[in-house]
């Protein structure tokens, strides 16, 4: 067997994997730009999904190049996917709804809402359901219900409130980031109710990332969507600058 017959397919497979990496990155950047007008959380989920798809295609092509029949792999992935979807259809629906409602959050933890005949205070919003404390009872409402049912937020001045989730990696200079986000929001100050200045709240932190929520109170409800878009764009810009600055610091440190 000629050695070239072995090396050439390996080289082609390698080139395909490199190309896959480039395409995955390129598509991620495009999605991030496009989703800049939506919420950060939703954008991250779509980015992850597309990334997985691109890599799956890349891997199949690379395997094919090595002379292995990808049909078996495709079949296995397909069957596994169908099985997973069938098994967790309900939770997936709720999970998806959780992220779609992020695009326009009609309530947040602490708000009083009425949904499906239940009225109470929202005490938790998780990936599957929203927990309401109603008359000393815990009511769990599937997130998908919020896509189908009418939700009434009875919190005082709820129409003014906008909550923007922000997730950053822990290597970013958090105090500087907060300062810059607030400074950036100041440019939009004429849109905010000046009795309620923007406030950044740390929600949770794990080893990799920190989750914040930026709470804003707007003056005009009809400009709500435009303000959400602008705020998200500005936050993305601030985070991009913070990431670049962090990378520069990292290089200087090395």
């Amino acid at each position, binding site marked *: 067997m000629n050695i070239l017959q072995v090396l050439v397919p390996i080289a082609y497979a390698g080139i395909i994997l490199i190309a896959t990496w480039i395409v995955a990155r390129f598509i991620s950047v495009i999605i991030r730009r496009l989703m800049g007008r939506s919420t950060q959380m939703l954008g991250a989920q779509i980015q992850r999904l597309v990334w997985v798809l691109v890599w799956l295609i890349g891997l199949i092509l690379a395997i094919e190049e090595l002379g292995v029949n990808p049909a078996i792999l495709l079949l296995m992935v397909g069957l596994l996917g169908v099985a997973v979807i069938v098994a967790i259809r309900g939770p997936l629906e709720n999970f998806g709804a959780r992220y779609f409602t992020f695009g326009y959050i009609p309530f947040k933890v602490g708000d009083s809402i009425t949904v499906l005949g239940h009225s109470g205070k929202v005490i938790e919003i998780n990936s599957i359901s929203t927990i309401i404390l109603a008359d000393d009872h815990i009511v769990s409402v599937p997130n998908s219900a919020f896509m189908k049912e009418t939700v009434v937020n009875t919190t005082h001045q709820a129409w003014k409130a906008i909550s923007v989730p922000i997730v950053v990696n822990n290597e970013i200079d*958090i*105090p*500087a980031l*907060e*300062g*810059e986000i*607030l*400074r950036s929001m*100041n440019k939009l*100050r004429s849109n*905010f109710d*000046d*009795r*309620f*200045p923007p*406030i*950044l*709240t*740390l929600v*949770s*932190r794990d080893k990799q990332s920190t989750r914040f929520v930026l709470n804003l109170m707007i003056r005009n409800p009809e400009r709500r969507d435009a303000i959400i878009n602008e705020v998200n764009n500005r936050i993305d810009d601030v985070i991009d600058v913070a990431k670049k600055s962090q990378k520069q610091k990292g290089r200087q440190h090395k």
Partner: protein
Amino acid sequence: MDGEKFNIKSFGLQSSKYSKEVQGLKILVNTQTPLIWFTHPPKEPKTVVTDLSQLREGEDYNYSTGGVTRMVQPLLKRMLSEGTISEAHWVSLNSAGYNTIKAEGITHHFVSLDKSRMESYGKVKEAMWNAAHGTTKDTTAAQKIFLSDDFPDYAYYNRLTAELINGLDKDIDFDIFYIHDFQQLPIGHMLNTLKPKMYRWHTPFEESTIPEKWKMLMNTYFNAYDLIVVSSGKYLESLKSFGYNGKVKKLYPYVDPEDYTRPNNGEVSTLCDRLGIKDEDDVMLVVARMDPMKGQDRAIDAFAYIAGKYKKLRLVLVGNGSFSSSKQGLGLSKGAVWRSELEEQVNKLGISDRVIFTGHLPQNELDALYERCNFTLLPSIKEGFGLVVVESWLHHKACIVTNRAGIAELITAGKDGLLINPDDMQDIAAKISILLEDRSISRKIGQAGFEVSKLCSISAGLHEETKAIKELVAE
């Protein structure tokens, strides 16, 4: 012979009953003002933990004279010695270069704020201070301060502090966080913890003086704390009606009598010679930092009003700027500007030969002045509490006190003090005359004041603070 220490037993100092139940807690204290000011950056790299005993007081560092640090340090020392706490960590602002330093069982961690942010931070802080004291000049600008371009730097400083505390908590796992003073208000909201958070508001708190547009943000910050401590009943009621939903407690500020000495005659004479005070002079003493809020101008006006009648009366003004107006601190020039204005006022009134500005005095010399004076005066326009009144009482000296100080609610007028309206110069002059005309009244008020001072001693404070901490941790 050195001056004798005040007799602690006379203050009923004893172990708090609560300290036996709550033992070995790890506490994190946060103030803006550091206990220690460094005069120069460290020679070793910043990461080295230095023991304060390796440095020299006066050369390498000085102690802060502020009321907050003066309360917090003895409290922590006593709690450590009683075993209520096993570890005390103190985070404060200090840009002189040290990161961590150990002093008398307390580990101090410092937040460094660069100059570019210091000015903006200072502006927001000043606006908050003015609001608390009811001295806001530009109310329109004040209303907008939280949406100003200065506010991000104020938030930056507080987040920087909170992140340092969060990091320390990860390593040490504190039992309780005790945040002090108005500058640090957002810290509770910024801490990533469910553990008990206690906050002490040291300045006056009156709902009417806080700009309407600050209420939502301030309430968000206030409500992040499980317990807020204020210095008077009036502030307590005001905080409740402001919108704070948590627990609030009135706790009088306190001093440690051990920090004060009764100087001997030689020490008093030496100081008086240096300041030009003669044996036959009557001395009216005002001890306050150089700040318009302290109302030294009112004391000067009242003095000038009666100076012709009481030819031997001298007015002695002790104090300089605060941490904020120091070069080592925020570098705001408020203290120096106010002193030059007061000196100009004294010159205009033609009483410069009878008014003495001492600047900052070390504690032993301040004690000597308390001993030498006939009585003291606290003419503040607004005063969170007024611990100098307690200092005066410790020396058995009568004190004329502004009715706008938190401590005014402890005073029975005519019995253990005299109350004045700081805006009424004739009222101040009349009260001074009472004490000069009948020395026995002055002595009786001073003696009665000494008894009241026990309410503001470290033993009383330790008992109440330990009780509050115990209740919070035990919940």
